[in-house]
């Protein structure tokens, strides 16, 4: 809590210091430019906490996550996020970063899966270990580009399933993901909408998550982004780490292939 207010103060100071010097005609652009300052991004607090959590012996098995294999071998973090989602033979399924971290927390540390799912998204004023761990691992791929080879048949299936779901209409408003995210240069209210069928838009989105959400006062993950979209679409709660969520993330990440990660991001 104290760290958060320090960051807020730094953010305000940076704002004051740079605001006068570089006044833009477009206040929205100006706001985004100020947010883009990495020294003012509270997301790095989550990176630090995630690093501590990664090495700490925790859970019923009193083990750290140091032997967790994120796809490049046990404990290899550099570049791991830029190669996810991928197929894991030990779990016999395609996993994104969060599903894989959950698998390691269950299998290495002995945590209860239902509890991890319930606490993965922090509530206002609370903390989530998952959000911190995602920030830590993802930051180790910052500056690298997404490469999703889709070699395994289950990876190909995840991509195809993700696309099929992207166009599926349902619920009160008949919305599909494509309703908002398959057109160029549109907005919902003042919020710009990316066309996720285009590489440049998909890359702009996917390379900036996990991201510090100023309006949520916390760092949010791609699983949260999926849950949030379905919430707006008036759908029930998306099951954390479900095949459906991983399929959509696989489709989006493949479309974003070649995009350079800059994480943790920061958004309104």
């Amino acid at each position, binding site marked *: 809590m104290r760290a958060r207010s320090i960051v807020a103060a730094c953010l305000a100071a940076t704002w004051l210091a740079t605001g006068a010097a570089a006044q833009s005609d477009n206040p929205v652009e100006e706001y985004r430019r100020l947010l883009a300052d990495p020294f003012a991004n509270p997301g790095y607090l989550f990176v630090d906490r995630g690093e501590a959590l990664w090495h700490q012996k925790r859970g019923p098995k009193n083990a750290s996550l140091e032997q967790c294999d994120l796809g490049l071998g046990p404990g290899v973090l550099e570049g791991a996020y830029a190669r996810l989602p991928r197929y894991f033979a030990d779990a016999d399924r395609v996993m994104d970063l969060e599903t894989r971290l959950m698998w390691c927390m269950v299998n290495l540390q002995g945590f209860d899966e239902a509890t991890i799912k319930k606490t993965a998204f922090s509530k206002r004023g609370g903390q989530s270990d998952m959000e911190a761990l995602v920030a830590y691992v993802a930051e180790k791929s910052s500056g690298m580009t997404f490469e999703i080879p*889709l070699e395994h*048949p289950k990876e*190909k*299936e995840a*991509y*195809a*399933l993700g*696309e*099929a*779901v992207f*166009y*599926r*209409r*349902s*619920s*009160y*408003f*008949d*919305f*599909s993901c*494509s*309703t*908002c995210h398959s*057109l160029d*240069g*549109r*907005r*919902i*209210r*003042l*919020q710009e*909408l990316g066309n996720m*069928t*285009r*590489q*440049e838009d*998909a890359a702009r989105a996917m390379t900036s998550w996990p991201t510090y959400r100023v309006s949520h006062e916390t760092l949010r993950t791609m699983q949260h982004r999926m849950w949030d979209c379905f*919430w*707006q679409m*008036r*759908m*029930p*709660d*998306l*099951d954390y780490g*479900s*095949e*459906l*969520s991983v*399929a959509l993330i696989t489709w989006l990440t*493949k*479309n974003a*292939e070649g995009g350079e990660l800059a994480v943790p991001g920061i958004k309104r």
Partner: protein
Amino acid sequence: MRFVTAAALSACLAVPVLAAEIPGLPTISVERREQAVRDGFRYDKLAPELKARIEQDDTQRLCTEYRNEPPPEVAARIEKAALEAIVFPEDGKFLGDWKKGEALSLNGYGLRMGDDPKRQVGGNCYACHEMAPTELSYGTLGPSLKGYGKLRDFAQDAIKEVYIKIYNPNATVACSTMPRFGTKKILSIDDIRHVLAFLFDPNSPVNREE
């Protein structure tokens, strides 16, 4: 100049990621997709009202199947069924209170998980449409509706047309992007009349100059 044109052209051609470019992609059957969707929302544990949000009705199923571009005979079938099921106001009056219509157009509350079911559900028109020229926070997924009534001379035919459009836009264009506010009971008939007044009342800010 020629270089710039060529570069712009190649950028346009190169950008979209097409599924066909990825070799060996499997075809996902409707059954496979629906199973993944049910599992993804833990269908078996949901209350009936939430189960219904996941199940597709005929319109949703057809528009998904054809990715919103149904062949002419399917489009005609969707449009006919939509038109036949429209419920018109019993007293034949289409216009309510434009001020209430403006509030409904600005309001995006309702029907989300955790939303209070006792509170008014909004129409959220501004999410996608420009309406009154004084409201700058509008979306661009739908066409601008600025000056809508005035541009149509406040004609009775146009008012009825928009009632149908809001009640079920598939009656006008099959597989429209717009929600079926009447059919899906998002808005009541009275709510729709208020929104119509916001579009067609000569005193509404939609029809006034900035």
